[in-house]
């Protein structure tokens, strides 16, 4: 009979997730300038790469990853989220990344099974 591990294995670790997301964003859109024709592909890449890295962690979590890429134009952007979950096991992490021509905001929500 397998022992069910509790404690550090089944909590949402913000730092770990944050590192994974930063790497995914750098890898997908690292040195690029905003291009309308490519932004579709970029968002897909960021999100898919993040998700595959998160699933490799092997934790008993369901993940929701959202990514917003916005051209730098002087406009403002605000993101808010409201969640109905179990505070002890579930968590979220938001990473803001930017270069000279665009912003990228990635939010990850982890829901324990």
């Amino acid at each position, binding site marked *: 009979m397998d022992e069910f591990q509790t404690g550090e294995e089944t909590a949402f670790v913000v730092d770990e997730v944050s590192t994974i997301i930063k790497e995914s964003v750098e890898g997908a859109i690292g040195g690029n300038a*905003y291009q*309308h024709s490519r*932004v*579709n592909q*970029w*968002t*897909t890449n*960021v*999100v*898919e790469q*993040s*998700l595959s890295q*998160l*699933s490799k962690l092997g934790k008993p979590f*369901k*993940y*929701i*990853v*959202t*990514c*917003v*890429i*916005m*051209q*730098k*134009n*002087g*406009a*403002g*952007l*605000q*993101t*808010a*989220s*409201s*969640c*109905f*979950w*179990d505070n002890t096991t*579930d968590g*979220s992490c938001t990473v803001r990344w930017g270069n000279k021509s665009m912003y990228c905001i990635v*939010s990850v*929500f982890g*829901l324990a*099974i």
Partner: protein
Amino acid sequence: MFPTTVEKVTLGSLHFRKRKCCYVKMEGTDTGGNTYLIRPNYHHKFKAAVVKECIHDILREQLSGVQYDPDEVGVLSRSLADCIKDKLKDVGFDRYKLVVQVVIGEQRGEGVKMAARCFWDADTDSYAQDIFMNDSLFCVAAAFGSYFY
């Protein structure tokens, strides 16, 4: 132990006993609390169409005629997210964990793209989203529902 009644039946010259057995019916277990359902009933599934309409109504109601104001947009987006979440709780997705994300941006002709991917159980979990735009702002609201086994 089953209570039994024994009847003596005579049929001509044959004597035999007919045994009647009565079974005691066990009390049914209480079906209140946790039923260990691993799949929601069709009626209790996260219905994307219903949720989309809820979101649509709330956005229309709260954002019509609103101008983008950097000082207030924080409070506004937070209250929208809470409002949508509370409305969904009332609709009655009992076994679902809800995540509602609201993005409000200023309209200045910039390009924006939003994408989402989810690692979940496609049978039970789903999402709904809606977009509201006026001259000075745009708002995207997405609600994700994840079944809690």
